[in-house]
């Protein structure tokens, strides 16, 4: 049995179609996922992300513990700000990609992918042992609701006491929304301006309904996981299990900048990653665009310019709802990485031409 979200009743009322996602029963779409995708690009969408995991790291050495546990330098993050980072194994493989909020000097909230919460909580607990810091999995104590899109600020402003002009991208603040005390963050996974609201599960319905009412004049639509995937793909954001895995390092995925070798002290994966940094990876993550309407999908073979020899594999792909042509991400042989390189994808037996391009596919104006 998969776990229902605290907002399950609301989703049923809205006529959602559900999908099992990492042990959770979550809305995949409410009506048309293309309409939901468009709403996020042009107006706003309302997402239930309560499947995500929230792990708290607290104590006098919380910052040092996270510097040791993650590849980033979390001690350098100011209170009220957030940072995208990764948890790596000792061999440099990516165990999860995470957003970490610094809520106070000695208090961080690490947000993990639903499928990896157990791994992340266990790794953080083990890695924090030699520090004066406590790791607590608080996933069941949080519901997560996201409002994403160009009109999301107007919607949140209408129902919140927070000073949104002072709340920058990748920042968070305690706030009251429709009378509910919660953590309001300006973060997201759509390539648009947007907010993520962390609240108690038993208050999630109230927050959802408050935002729905405030969003009505702004053409806010409830939006499911189907459009969340096409939105993040257009924005060129990786999805764990597709572009990232324990068999890949941050360097393979092009996230060199996230590995902070210059921070103080050791960190898990440092030695292996330092070794990997010396060599060009054999396969690298690239972005591809095609023509027509047939999309490369995860697992399809990427073929060289000759259209026969396999030089890589698609990790994610879709007909871009915003752009109208196929887009994909793929691991390919490093000598095929240059933008402009012509390749092919084996789409169920047909070699369709694609071109390597720079990420992101879509950037908000």
């Amino acid at each position, binding site marked *: 049995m998969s776990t229902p979200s605290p907002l399950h009743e609301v989703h049923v009322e809205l006529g959602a*179609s559900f999908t099992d996602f990492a042990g959770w029963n979550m809305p*995949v*779409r409410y009506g*048309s*996922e*293309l309409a939901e995708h468009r709403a996020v690009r042009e107006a706003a969408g309302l997402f239930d992300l309560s499947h995500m995991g929230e792990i708290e790291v607290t104590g006098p050495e919380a910052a040092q513990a996270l510097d040791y546990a993650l590849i980033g330098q979390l001690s350098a993050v100011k209170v009220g700000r957030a940072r995208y980072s990764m948890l790596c194994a000792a061999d440099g493989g990516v165990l999860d990609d995470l957003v970490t909020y610094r809520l106070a000097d000695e208090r961080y909230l690490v947000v993990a992918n639903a499928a990896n919460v157990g791994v992340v909580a266990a790794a953080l607990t083990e890695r924090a042992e030699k520090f004066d810091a406590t790791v607590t999995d608080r996933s069941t104590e949080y519901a997560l609701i996201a409002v994403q899109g160009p009109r999301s600020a107007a919607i949140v402003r209408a129902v919140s006491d927070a000073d949104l002009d002072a709340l920058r991208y990748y920042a968070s603040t305690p706030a009251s929304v429709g009378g509910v005390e919660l953590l309001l963050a300006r973060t997201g996974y759509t390539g648009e301006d947007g907010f993520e609201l962390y609240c108690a599960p038993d208050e999630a319905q109230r927050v959802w309904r408050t935002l729905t009412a405030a969003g009505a004049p702004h053409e806010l639509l409830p939006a499911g996981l*189907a*459009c969340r*995937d*096409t939105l993040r793909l257009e924005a060129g954001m990786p999805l764990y299990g597709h572009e990232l895995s324990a068999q890949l390092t941050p360097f393979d995925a092009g996230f060199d900048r996230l590995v902070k070798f210059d921070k103080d002290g050791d960190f898990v994966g440092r030695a292996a990653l330092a070794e990997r940094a010396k060599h060009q990876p054999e396969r690298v993550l690239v972005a591809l665009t095609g023509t027509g*309407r*047939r*999309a490369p*999908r995860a697992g399809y073979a990427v073929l060289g310019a000759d259209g026969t020899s396999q030089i890589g594999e698609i990790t994610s792909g*879709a*007909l871009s*709802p915003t752009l109208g042509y196929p887009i994909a991400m793929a691991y390919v042989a490093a000598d095929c990485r240059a933008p402009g390189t012509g390749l092919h994808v084996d789409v*169920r037996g047909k070699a369709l031409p694609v071109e390597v391009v720079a990420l992101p596919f879509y950037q908000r104006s």
Partner: protein
Amino acid sequence: MDTPEHLKYTEEHEWLSLDGDVATVGVTDFAQNSLGDIVFVELPDPGDEVAAGAPCGELESTKSVSELYAPANGEVVAVNEDIKDTPELVNSDPYGEGWLFRLRVSELPDLLDAADYAEIIKE
């Protein structure tokens, strides 16, 4: 989920409307709803011989690719050209504008009536 009385159905979620020996074929309301927004349809060509239960095309939604199965043996006599540019017709009007192709039926297998099909999709 809409399952019109006058149509015949397959377990692969296609519908047939028989007019003499020519059948108009599409996918059901249940199918389009399960697939989500259809963004690409590959249809057989007029003149193609198709066999009942064998794949004869593809339906792509944003998330997945599904095979389209021929519901009967026969020759394709027409395809819905509008579907190529506006595949969303499959979603908006699966039993009307969203029809897929017409078949001159040479052999018709046992098909489901609306009540039987409605029973199947309830599960």
